[in-house]
């Protein structure tokens, strides 16, 4: 009953003895990240309908009262809206603020330890799945990998080592996004909403609040933050301050365990928040005011 099976080259991309659906996960990640990149690019190129604060920037059904359609909502992919904050400085700038903003969260996610795993597997096939052979994909070669696998030791992957700086910037963005979420509830008067009251809760306010909460969970479950909090210490009980840091580290470690989950949920929610505001601004969907 001897069966001769040729011992395959275990190093070729896709070579494996695994008989489970190992390709499902990398394909889903490829699809998910790909979809987000395509959507965000499209949204940025569209260049309008990312905010609902001004009557002239949204589409109002014929004959309706325009003041009932403005909302203190701003898409997270265009926040902060720098051209609006500093009109003189950006007088030459005529495109969507998304192009100014997206590089920062983009760099944060691109150097994130979780996303690195995700795209090294799905886009670069080093490796696509465990105990599945994987040589650098054409894409990874295009991006500057040498023929030989060099991990994160050489340009451009070398820059993955600076992830913490993108975290610092992302933490600053959280302040701005929290302000936007606050505006979603308490910013109705100065945009001239119909009834003149300052506080309302719209479905959009809740969507934006969800966005800042999920982004906060993602941002502060970061591995670099975990290191900075106390991971870098060798002795936790050496002083009161280090003990406090240890307590914070323990709590953050709980979040950190779910970093992948937060990475996905927050990504999806950012896309959804933008889509929601965009559809409302375009008059395709109507935002409801709950109270």
């Amino acid at each position, binding site marked *: 009953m001897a069966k001769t*099976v040729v011992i395959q080259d275990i190093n070729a991309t896709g070579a494996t003895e695994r008989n489970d659906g190992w390709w499902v996960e990398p394909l889903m990640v490829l699809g998910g990240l790909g979809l987000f990149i395509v959507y965000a690019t499209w949204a940025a190129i569209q260049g309008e309908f990312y905010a609902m604060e001004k009557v002239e920037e949204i589409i109002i059904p014929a004959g309706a009262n325009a003041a009932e359609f403005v909302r203190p909502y701003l898409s997270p992919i265009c926040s902060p809206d720098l051209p609006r904050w500093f009109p003189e400085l950006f007088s030459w700038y005529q495109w969507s603020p998304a192009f100014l903003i997206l590089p920062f969260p983009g760099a944060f996610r691109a150097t994130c330890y979780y996303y690195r795993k995700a795209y090294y*597997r799905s886009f670069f096939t080093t490796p696509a799945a465990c105990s599945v052979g994987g*040589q650098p994909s054409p894409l990874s070669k295009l991006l500057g990998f040498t023929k030989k*696998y060099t991990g994160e030791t050489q340009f451009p992957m070398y820059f993955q080592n600076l992830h913490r700086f993108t975290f610092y910037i992302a933490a600053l963005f959280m302040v701005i996004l929290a302000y936007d979420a606050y505006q979603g509830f308490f910013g109705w008067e100065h945009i001239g909403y119909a009834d003149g009251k300052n506080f309302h809760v719209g479905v959009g306010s809740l969507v934006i609040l969800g966005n800042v909460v999920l982004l906060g969970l993602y941002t502060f479950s970061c591995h670099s933050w975990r290191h900075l909090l106390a991971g870098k210490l*060798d002795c*936790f009980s050496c002083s009161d301050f280090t003990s406090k840091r240890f307590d914070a580290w323990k709590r953050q470690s709980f979040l*950190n365990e779910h970093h992948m989950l937060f990475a996905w949920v927050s990504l999806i929610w950012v896309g959804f928040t933008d889509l929601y505001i965009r559809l409302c601004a375009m008059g395709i969907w109507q935002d409801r005011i709950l109270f």
Partner: protein
Amino acid sequence: MAKAEATFHVFRGEAADAESGVEASGEYQEYKVPVEEGMVVLDAMHYIQGEDAPDLAVRWNCKAAKCGSCSAEINGKPRLLCKQRMDALPLDEPIVVSPLKTFPLVKDLVTDVSWNYKMNAAIPPFQPKEEDTDKWEVFENDVVRTQEFRKCIECFLCQDVCHVLRNHDRKDAFAGPRFMVRLASLDMHPMDARNDRVKYTKEEAGIGLCNITKCCTEVCPEDIKITDNAIIPMKERVVDEFYDPVMKVLRGIGLAHKK
């Protein structure tokens, strides 16, 4: 009721012979094994030894997932033969059992993992800070983090699955996840006197070659979160010392410790 029967394709092969230059070779042989309740794959290998192939080479000791001897690959996945239950495997297709593919073959399911012992021996051992270790007071909080690393049973499944060693054959430059775990436990130890662990981790153990794709974590039978708790924290320590320009300035003006 007829007993369920499993079909195995078990790798049978011989080592390379350095003298004659013959390469390692082998083939998969088919065996039928009746499935008993609670059976693990190692039991099936013993059944084959008893019934069909007394010369089948398989290494094992504890049969309790604690000695790390019976490492092999089952349906292409690095596993402990004694921990893989039969009822968790699909029986409608052959179960493929092969040796660890990252290390040289000795015979059948047995591989020569001695490269790992060399990597281990090269790491400078723990060096206590104070002479008189009786006076030590170590608080629980300071060792909780490294407790996890002590669970390692040196099965080397993580070394086997790591693509840096397995597919790119960088045994010359990368010590592998098992030793990232060991280096982390030494560097994070509050009583270790050496301050060159991070440098060693970068330059000798080659942590930059790991691209944190987490296969080591996926296969570890002790559920050590190798990537999240050992490798990434060590990568961050390497950044502190070698890549972070702000830390460099802070060290320069004396606001951060020189390690």
